């Protein structure tokens, strides 16, 4: 593993950069996307590395180029960039290496981070929270925040240290997390939670059961109607979603259908 010859940046500086990375997207723009946020986060380190003058100006310009990645993994890129800037300052590498490494790493981190956090972790934690919210558990929002932010804060703060200490070898470290396997596990767990949510939390009631079923069979009849009805509704809506119909349009169609069925006395 590559380690910096004599680390110039201490823990306090790295913490400061991790903290500043929370504001990465404050000035998100269509030209450079997160470029200002990236430079803002590493600015204290650049100021320490380069005295005022052309070298500092050049470093600023270098990091005002286009930058876009997963915000939780950005601190990892920042750490790697700092280790490279240090080497550049010592004359060990040229500026193109910083540019190319930064570009490659931001793409890799976007793929890994977006895939894990947006596509797997957030839906799973949301589905788990929904099982509690439907039961009117009032602490659900706090639990959601605590659970969701454990890996977020871990990657945000450790990322900058890993990036700085390991340099480009940080990719090997990412592999050790088995992100693909974790994503699959989260997807299956989300499906299992959905299997619970669908028959139990789509409220579908019809008056026919009350008038046609003996009272002792009412509970099981109600559960069956709710389960089958919910599965049919979800199936129809999922078919619409797969056919690329907008979610809001599907909701609107569902509302119209609900009002019509209510008007005809089929739903109450």
């Amino acid at each position, binding site marked *: 593993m590559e380690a910096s010859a004599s680390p110039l940046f201490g823990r306090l500086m790295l913490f400061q950069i991790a903290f500043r990375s*929370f504001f990465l*997207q*404050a*000035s*998100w*723009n*269509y*030209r450079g996307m997160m*470029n*200002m946020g990236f430079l*803002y986060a590493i600015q204290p380190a650049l100021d320490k590395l380069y005295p005022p003058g052309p070298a500092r100006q050049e470093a600023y310009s270098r990091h*005002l180029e286009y930058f876009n990645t997963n915000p939780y993994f950005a601190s990892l890129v920042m750490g790697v960039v700092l280790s490279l800037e240090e080497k550049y300052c010592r004359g060990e590498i040229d500026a193109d290496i910083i540019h190319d490494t930064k570009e490659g790493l931001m793409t890799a981190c976007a793929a890994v981070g977006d895939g894990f956090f*947006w*596509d797997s972790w*957030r839906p799973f934690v*949301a589905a788990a929270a929904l*099982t509690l*919210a439907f039961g009117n558990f*009032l602490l*659900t929002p706090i639990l959601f*925040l605590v659970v969701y932010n454990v890996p*977020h804060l871990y990657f945000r703060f450790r990322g900058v240290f890993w990036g700085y200490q390991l340099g480009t070898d940080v990719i090997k470290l990412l*592999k050790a997390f*088995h992100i693909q*396997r974790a994503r*699959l*596990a*989260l*997807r*299956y*767990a*989300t*499906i*299992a939670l*959905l*299997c619970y*949510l*669908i*028959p139990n*939390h*789509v*409220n579908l009631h019809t008056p026919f059961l009350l008038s046609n079923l003996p009272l002792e069979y009412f509970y099981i009849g109600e559960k069956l109607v709710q*389960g089958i009805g*919910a599965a049919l*509704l*979800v*199936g129809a*809506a*999922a078919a619409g979603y*797969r056919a690329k119909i907008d*979610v*809001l349009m*599907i*909701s609107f169609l*569902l*509302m119209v259908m*609900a009002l019509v069925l*209510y*008007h005809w006395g089929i*739903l109450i």
Partner: protein
Amino acid sequence: MTEDHLTSSLLIGLIGGIVDLDSTATWQFMISQPIVAAPLTGLFLGALAGQEALGLKLGLMIGTILQLLWIEQLPLGMNVPPDAALASVLSVALGFLAGRDFDTYVEREVCNTVALLVAVALGLFGRALDRGIRRLNTRLESWVTLRLQSGKASWALAAGHTLGGFLTFGKAFLFCFIVTWLGVEPLRAFTRSLSFGQNTGFIVIQGLLPAVGFAVLAGMCIKDQRELRWFLSGVVLFTILPTSAWIGWLIAGIAGARILWTQNDAV
């Protein structure tokens, strides 16, 4: 308009500004997710009216539905998703403030459902505002680049970057304040104009709306026929089993753990 309503509107503006900052501009702790933003709004509004539990429950109910509706919306690259944070804050604010004047449960529920539907549309408008802010940020970026290249003003970066955050906050604050300030009375009038039959129809809608979110989540998670068969068997199983979230959690845990122990990373 009373002083009380002005205070509520300002409070909603403040909450809207803070949670909107979290949605993309800063932090991203996910306070902006509907399941957090809506109960938070309900709690603060409830506290102002001395009805904390009522506000929190309303927030949780609305947050649950909005979380499901927008579960697939991701802030990836150039994609600007509908503003779920503002929609959550506004739906709770409008529902709570308009509904508290009614005596019956049904009328209050109608206020909540209509507020939810209106807020979904406002979430789309919020997206347009977000794009406007990003265009302003693009101008800011050009200004900062020029300043830094001239080498005269290294403070320009911090100033430009911070201004970007203030623009996001200001947009959300004003939007939430104006909608709450002007929107409560028309919502009350609309609810008053409905008959009892129409009112209960809105409650039926509220019960069915989660189906759309479940469909979206299923569409995201189920990739092939084999998974679909497992999923349908699971739905049948949970239709028969007693209603208990713990059983759901147990089976989810087993499904996840099985993958973690048996699969390799080639999958």
